[in-house]
C-alpha cells in the first residue's frame, strides 16, 4: 500500500459539500494550484476537481417506453420519425440508437452521403420537446391483438425515457490523417489528401478519464453530469481496455478506458445532447459528460493536474491502415501540439482541428463545480471501480 500524507474519504468530502464548505476547482484551474502549492498542499486544500467533455459519441441511445395502448400491442417493429428503433425488448419498450439512419435515406449511394436525419436527431428532438411521429407494428397475439399503432408524441407522453450509452468518454482517442490522393469521409470528419488536415477528438486536460488515469475514483455508481442533468456511470464501457502503453504519469497514449452511462432523458437539455450529421459517414450524437474527481490524497491531486503537453496520442492513416485494421501509428503527438492548430509529421506542417468542443467541455466543468459548491450535487461512491487490468 502506498503511504499518503493526505487521506480523505468520499464520505468526508460529501459532508463538506452538504455543509457548503467543499473546495471545488476545474481540471484547468487545478494545474496552476498544484504547480504553485505542490501536490500535498493542493490535496489538503482542494476537495473536488471537475472535468468535462463534449464530443460525438456514437455508442449512445435511449430506452423508451411509450405506455400500453388500447387495444394492446406487442410492438415488435418501432419507428420514430421514420427512424427504426429496436423493438425486440418488451411490448412497448424500444431502444433508439444514435447512429440509426432514417428509412429511405440514400446513404452513401450519392457519395458522400449527407445523413440529414437519424437516431441522434430523434433524441435531440425528444429532449427539445418537439413532436415525434411514433409508429409501431405487432404480429398480433391473444394478449396483444393490435397490429398497428401510430401517434404523434412528445417526450412528455413517454412513460419512461432513459439515456443509456454503452460506450462514452473514451480515455484518449486516435488522431486521424489521410495519406491517399483523394479526400476521404470518415467518422473523424472530412480528411483531405496527402495529410492536409488532422482530426482529433478529446478535450485533453479537461477530459474526465485523463484526470483519473487508473480509475481510482470512477466506477459503477459514480454520479456525473450527463446531458445537462445528473446521471451515473453504469458499467465499464464496451471496449474498455486499460492494458495499453502509458506515460510515466500513467496517462494512456492511445484509446483505453471507457464508461457506460445512464440518466433520465426527460431531465436533459438539447444544449448538451446535439445530433451530428457527418458527411459521408453517418449520424451520431454529441454528448456532454462531466465527472467530479474527489481529491482523496496527493496522488489524485497530482493526476488531476495533468496538462495537455503531458498527454499523448497516436496519429493513424485513415485511408489505408485504419480501414484494414493495421495499427501502425505514423507519429505520436501531444494535445498541446494538437490544440496549437498544427502538428509536424515528417517535416510537413498539418493543420489540426478537433471534433469535440473544448468550449463546451469547460462550460460543463464549471456547471458541475457550481452544482457541487451549491450542495446540489453529492458525489456517488463507486460500488466497484473500473477494471485496471
Amino acid at each position, binding site marked *: 500500500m502506498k503511504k499518503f500524507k493526505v487521506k480523505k474519504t468520499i464520505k468526508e468530502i460529501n459532508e463538506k459539500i452538504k455543509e457548503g464548505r467543499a473546495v471545488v476547482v476545474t481540471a484547468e484551474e487545478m494545474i496552476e494550484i498544484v504547480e504553485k502549492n505542490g501536490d500535498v498542499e493542493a490535496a489538503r486544500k482542494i476537495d473536488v476537481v471537475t472535468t468535462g467533455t463534449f464530443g*460525438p459519441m456514437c455508442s449512445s441511445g435511449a430506452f423508451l417506453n411509450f405506455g400500453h395502448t388500447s387495444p394492446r400491442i406487442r410492438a415488435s417493429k418501432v419507428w420514430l420519425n421514420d427512424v427504426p428503433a429496436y423493438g425486440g425488448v418488451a411490448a412497448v419498450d424500444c431502444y433508439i440508437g444514435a447512429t440509426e439512419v432514417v428509412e429511405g435515406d440514400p446513404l452513401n449511394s450519392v457519395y458522400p452521403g449527407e445523413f440529414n436525419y437519424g437516431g441522434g436527431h430523434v433524441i435531440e428532438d425528444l429532449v427539445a420537446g418537439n413532436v415525434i411521429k411514433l409508429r409501431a407494428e405487432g404480429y398480433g397475439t391473444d394478449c396483444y391483438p393490435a397490429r398497428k399503432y401510430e401517434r404523434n408524441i412528445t417526450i412528455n407522453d413517454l412513460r419512461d425515457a432513459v439515456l443509456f450509452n454503452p460506450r462514452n468518454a473514451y480515455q484518449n482517442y486516435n488522431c486521424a490523417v489521410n495519406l491517399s490522393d483523394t479526400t476521404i469521409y470518415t467518422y473523424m470528419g472530412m480528411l483531405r489528401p496527402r495529410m492536409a488536415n488532422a482530426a482529433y477528438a478529446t478535450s485533453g486536460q479537461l477530459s474526465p478519464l485523463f484526470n483519473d488515469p487508473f480509475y481510482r475514483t470512477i466506477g459503477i455508481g459514480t454520479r456525473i453530469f450527463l446531458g445537462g442533468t445528473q446521471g451515473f456511470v453504469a458499467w465499464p464501457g464496451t471496449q474498455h481496455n486499460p492494458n495499453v502503453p502509458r506515460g510515466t504519469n500513467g496517462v494512456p497514449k492511445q484509446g483505453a478506458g471507457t464508461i457506460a452511462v445512464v440518466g433520465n432523458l426527460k431531465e436533459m437539455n438539447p444544449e448538451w445532447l446535439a445530433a451530428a450529421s457527418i458527411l459521408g459517414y453517418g449520424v451520431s450524437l454529441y454528448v456532454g459528460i462531466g465527472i467530479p474527481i474527489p481529491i482523496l490524497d496527493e496522488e489524485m491531486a497530482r493526476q488531476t493536474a495533468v496538462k495537455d503537453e503531458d498527454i499523448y496520442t497516436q496519429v493513424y492513416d485513415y485511408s489505408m491502415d485504419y480501414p484494414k485494421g493495421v495499427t501502425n501509428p505514423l507519429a505520436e503527438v501531444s494535445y498541446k501540439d494538437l490544440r496549437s492548430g498544427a502538428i509536424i509529421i515528417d517535416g510537413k506542417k498539418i493543420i489540426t482541428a478537433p471534433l469535440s468542443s473544448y*468550449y463546451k467541455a469547460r462550460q460543463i466543468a464549471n456547471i458541475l463545480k457550481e452544482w457541487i459548491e451549491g450542495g446540489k450535487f453529492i458525489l456517488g461512491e463507486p460500488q466497484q471501480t473500473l477494471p485496471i487490468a
Partner: protein
Amino acid sequence: MAMYSKKIVIRYTPDIVQQPVIYQLVKQYDLIFNILKARIFPRREGVIVLELSGLKENFDRGIRFLKEMGLKVEPLSKSVSQNINKCVHCGACTAFCSTLALSFEKPSQKVLFDPEKCNGCELCVSACPVRAMEINLL
C-alpha cells in the same frame, strides 16, 4: 495574364428574367461561367449562383454590366452565416477555412465567424457536424 475567379449570387426580378444576361457576359466580356445553383420561378424572383472566371478587368466590367441591368449581385460569401444557436464550437470547420474567417477566439475557445474574410468556398458547410454553417440564398 492571371485568371480571376469568384462565386457570385445574382438575384433576378421578374422583368429581367426574360433577357439573356448571362449570354452577354460570355459574348461581351469573355467570361467563363459555371452555374452552381439556380432557382428561377416564372413571373417571380430568382437566384443564380455562378462561378465566374476571366481576366480581372473583364470580371469587373461584367459585374458592372449586371448591376446596370438592375440585377442585385453579391459575392456568395455574403450569404454564408454561422447559426449561433446550433454551433457547438467544436472547431472542425477551422481546418477547412483557408481565409481564417472561422477561427478560435482565445482564451474562450469559442469559434467565431468573420463574414468579411469569407470567400464563400462552402467547405465549412460540409465539414460542420451539426450543420451550423448555412448558405441563405433567398
